[in-house]
């Protein structure tokens, strides 16, 4: 039982991380119907910028909490700027282009950002400075840390905040209107360009927060960390129904749980044949099954019949 509980905790935390990143994908997708393939790199840059600034500040003799606050804000600001420029450079000019074109620019940007990061931060793995004292709790034989609790809380808060933003504010209303029909929204006085840009900026800010969380959980960072993370988060977003905020959250947590429980139990259930070496595909198999019966994901609204 303690093993089971531990696996649930493992899955939950991993899932919260996927969910945080997935929210960024879904934010952009919900409005423009575009997969921002470079979002994983935004998360990576968020982590690396936070590492550099926090380490620098701590070395300069500033108290850790203050250094962390400044470092995180810096990283969030930098990622917001990055998100904004990504939209301007790689996506806005292509808004009326064939649907796959922005996908390719996104891949191109992703390669560019990765290599830039490699040139700036080098090829080595980096250590994320500890921001808070890690304390360990034990419940019924399963252990977890305060960092894990913070991650889950931040993910839940981020989702709540976004829901509030989209459904309770003027900007949110403009976003929903733009998602429905940009042209008509424009006629109603919504500045579609600004709304879309703000979606990118908010998504990227979330990416930076996710980056800091990932960094302080695993305590390492690397210029290639964004790719796998982005991929998993994207899977999570689709699982939950891409474009749906609650769906992204649910998809992320579900994906984390599937991976943890899959690695933990499927091996024994299949006599060792499908062991943890198949960990990465359990999620895909579940995804395929879900999509066979619900072609728009768990929480997705039925999309129209346009591809």
């Amino acid at each position, binding site marked *: 039982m303690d093993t089971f509980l531990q696996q649930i905790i493992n899955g939950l935390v991993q899932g919260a991380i996927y969910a945080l990143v997935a929210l960024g994908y879904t934010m952009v997708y919900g409005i423009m119907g575009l997969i921002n393939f470079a979002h994983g790199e935004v998360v990576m840059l968020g982590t690396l910028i936070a590492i550099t600034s926090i380490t620098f500040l701590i070395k300069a003799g500033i108290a850790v909490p203050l250094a962390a606050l400044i470092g995180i804000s810096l990283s969030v600001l930098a990622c917001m700027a990055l998100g904004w420029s990504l939209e301007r450079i790689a996506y806005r000019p292509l808004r009326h282009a064939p649907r796959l074109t922005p996908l390719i620019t996104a891949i191109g940007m992703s390669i560019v950002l*990765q290599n830039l990061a490699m040139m700036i931060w080098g090829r080595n793995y980096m250590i994320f400075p500890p921001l808070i004292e890690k304390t360990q709790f034990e419940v019924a034989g399963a252990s977890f840390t305060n960092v894990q609790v913070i991650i889950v809380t931040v993910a839940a808060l981020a989702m709540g905040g976004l829901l509030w933003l989209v459904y309770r504010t003027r900007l949110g209303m403009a976003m929903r209107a733009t998602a429905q029909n940009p042209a008509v929204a424009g006629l109603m006085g919504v500045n579609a360009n600004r709304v879309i840009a703000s979606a990118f900026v908010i998504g990227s800010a979330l990416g930076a927060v996710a980056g800091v969380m990932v960094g302080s959980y695993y305590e390492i960072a690397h210029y290639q960390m964004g790719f796998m993370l982005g*991929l998993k988060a994207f899977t999570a977003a689709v699982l939950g129904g891409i474009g749906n905020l609650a769906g992204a959250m649910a998809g992320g947590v579900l994906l984390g749980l599937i991976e943890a429980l899959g690695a933990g139990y499927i091996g024994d259930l299949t006599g060792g044949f499908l062991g943890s070496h198949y960990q990465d595909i359990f999620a895909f198999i579940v995804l*395929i099954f879900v999509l066979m019966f619900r072609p728009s994901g768990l929480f997705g609204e039925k999309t129209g019949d346009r591809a």
Partner: protein
Amino acid sequence: MRLWLQSLTPRALFGLALVAVALLALPFVAAMGGQAWVRIANFAILYIFLALGLNIVVGFAGLLDLGYIAFYAVGAYLWALLASPHFGLHWPFWAILPLGAMVACCFGVILGAPTLKLRGDYLAIVTLGFGEIVRIFINNLNAPLNITNGPQGINLIDPVAIGEFKFSTTSTLFGITFTGPQKYYYLLVLLALAVIVINFRLQHSRIGRAWQAIREDEIAAKAVGINTRNIKLLAFAMGASFGGVAGGIFAAMQGFVSPESFSLIESVMILAMVVLGGMGHIPGVILGAVLLSVLPEALRYAVVPVQKMLFGEVLADPESLRMLVFGLALVLVMRFKPAGLLPSPERRRELAEKV
């Protein structure tokens, strides 16, 4: 076919002859810069295969496929298993290649069947997952029964051979010395020409028009009596079989296959070739494949000399700059040529109307 030839003007005929001469001379011209260039040309042709195969799915039928590399992997591993010391089998190529195409074709149907209802990005993620599933299975099927030899890969794979004539070694024919890569080049050109002809015939056949109809409007296509399910499956199957053949040749050329060669990023690259060149337009796709496979290699040679010329010294190390330039090129081309470098005429028209 004859009719088509007769309809050519003398000028076009001259152009065709020029192309033929260029194709024949290329490996020798390239060899002046070293055999590496012949090898790069060979990989470019392999990528033409793959891009054209994917073009059937993405370009003709409009189904976004991010796991195309799986079929390439299936073809490569089939060849590796049937013509290497791993199982002690040494089948001839004329038996394996068609079999590879067929097996890949089956995999295409397996992928297609559960995804028929899906569209756009949902389809993309499922196909991506499928590609990963195939790779991970190949990577892990060394236990309990050793089928693929797992991450160690399969080594000492037989080259393509006709009787005693092996494609991997240097030999002299009609007084001209051909190196291994050069012989493979001619084989690949022949196969590529066949693939290109098949693609042109497909595009303008009933099936090709049915694909186009599905791409433009699936419901309308259904309404006019197209069996969308079968036609979609056919697209997956046809596309996959090209991948299977390419994979077989890849295994034979390399003499070694391991799961590392079939990662997701390869699928993404092939998709980039199709889109960058001009989706659904065969010459465009060919151009895309050639450009994207040659560009990173050309940059390998160019980055250091160019830096030396501009700044007098090497500022950034060539490896990182190479991929940086590559990524920038992707962004810039799509930014200024959103429909690809050589879009099909109808696409160009559509785009012109929109703006």
